[in-house]
């Protein structure tokens, strides 16, 4: 098994990524993203948004289904659909503290609900009764720009991390810096070794040449 210390370091850097609290308002029932499998033709932004921002959103809003439907069609659109519950439906839902989506879809069985796919199986579903959809065009956009627009359109609250969490994040950063220093030390050592080997090889070649010339 992996060295426990090493494993813990990897884990801490990954967990630290989830520390910037981004809490969606309870009206949001689900998210749906639609983009291509490969990054050409402006599909890099959505891909990066998925890789860098979505895990954090999912961590702080575990109840909100976040579906990603990818296809091999790079010419197609890249859209992010946000499904809002209408006010009536939101009021009907039992009130829970902010930060957790109050209503979980228990009505349809899981197997029949849309799920993430890499073969274009689940395109963005039509809004249910009492739902409205807001879309974001993600094509040719940077992931930061997408996040900006997303936060503005959803009205999500981004909370400042607590001192403990800040400390954790700083430790993860330190670890990264330390790793860079260690890497450079190691690189210097290897480079020196290789240079020495090269010198020796050249000297040996010359000696061989001299020996052959003398014969």
């Amino acid at each position, binding site marked *: 098994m992996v060295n426990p210390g090493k494993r*813990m370091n990897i884990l801490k850097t*990954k967990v630290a990524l989830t520390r910037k609290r981004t809490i969606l308002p309870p009206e949001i029932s689900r998210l749906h993203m639609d983009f291509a499998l490969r990054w050409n033709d402006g599909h890099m932004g959505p891909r990066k948004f998925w890789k860098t921002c979505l895990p954090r959103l999912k961590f702080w809003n575990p109840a909100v289904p976040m579906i990603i439907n990818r296809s091999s069609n790079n010419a197609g659109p890249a859209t992010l659909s946000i499904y809002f519950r209408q006010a009536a439906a939101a009021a009907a839902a039992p009130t829970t503290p902010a930060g957790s989506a109050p209503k979980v879809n228990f009505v349809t069985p899981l197997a029949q609900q849309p*799920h*993430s796919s890499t073969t274009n199986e689940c395109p963005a579903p039509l809004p249910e009764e009492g739902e409205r959809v807001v879309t974001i065009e993600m094509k040719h956009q940077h992931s930061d720009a997408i996040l900006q627009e997303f936060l503005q359109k959803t009205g999500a609250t981004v909370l400042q991390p607590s001192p403990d969490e800040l400390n954790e994040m700083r430790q993860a950063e330190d670890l990264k810096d330390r790793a860079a220093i260690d890497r450079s030390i190691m690189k210097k050592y290897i480079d020196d070794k290789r240079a020495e080997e090269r010198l020796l090889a050249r000297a040996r070649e010359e000696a061989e040449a001299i020996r052959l010339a003398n014969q």
Partner: protein
Amino acid sequence: MASTSQFLASLARLSISSAPRPAASSIPRFLAPSVTTQIRCASGGTAQMQARQREKEKLKKKRRQQRFKEYKYAVPSGKGEQFSLCDAMRYLRAAEVGRPPSSVTYEVALKVRTIKNGPVIRNRIRFPYPVKNDTRIGVICAEGSNAMHDARTGGAVAFGEQSMFDLIKANANNLPFNRLICHADSVSALNKAGLGRVLGPKGLMPSLKTNTITKSVKTMMHEMVGAETYREKIGVIRIPIGNIQFSPKQLSENVKTFIESIKADISRMEDRVDKDIIEVVLTSTNGPGFTLNGGFLPTDEKVDPAHLATAM
């Protein structure tokens, strides 16, 4: 004179083998000159004797070391953080967001403290909530026998004897089943059919070693549906334990069943083997590994366990 000294030497050797060797200083040298030669012989000896001695010592040392050889990190470090099941699931679901649920599973890695050259844990387990249920079983049994009836009622996709052999030969690359079991009475027919070349590379060839030859087709099929095999490799047992869409309740039941089964396996082994479970790590196909602390509820009271079972 030479012959007498030789004779004396052999006598001395005899006396040494029966009685403890007399100290060299206790006997005056002039009385037994042969004894001194004997001592030199025992301490130095011929090159062969020395080599043999060295070999023996090496063996001894080796035996002594092996008894304590364990895998690295076999002892709990105590430094690492531990997580409750719901917390670990929350992190893993965040790590797996946007992946097709059919291609993502929760996995468990169980670290076991064990010696390197001892027996390994190896068994098959049926989970209360099967991870995947795409098991399609083919049964080789005599036509019209009781076993064939069992196979039909048990839901086998293909069964029979000669008809099965023909089917396997006809479409070797597109078999309708992914598990193959054989009734004990049909083994000779199977061996005669010469299907080892077709089935062997696919790992489907029924054999006693893989526990796929049986007298009771019914129980074997029941065992196989949704069953997973596991095996200890370099001190760790890894097994997929749940679909990413499982609820915390389902997952915890699976984990419990798994650990109970491992404990039963360990207790069933001979008593000179002592293995113990050190660490239970929950991970997922693309996620990091979280050491479990045995708790269930999330630390964040805003999160309901039901929230961790939504569509992915």
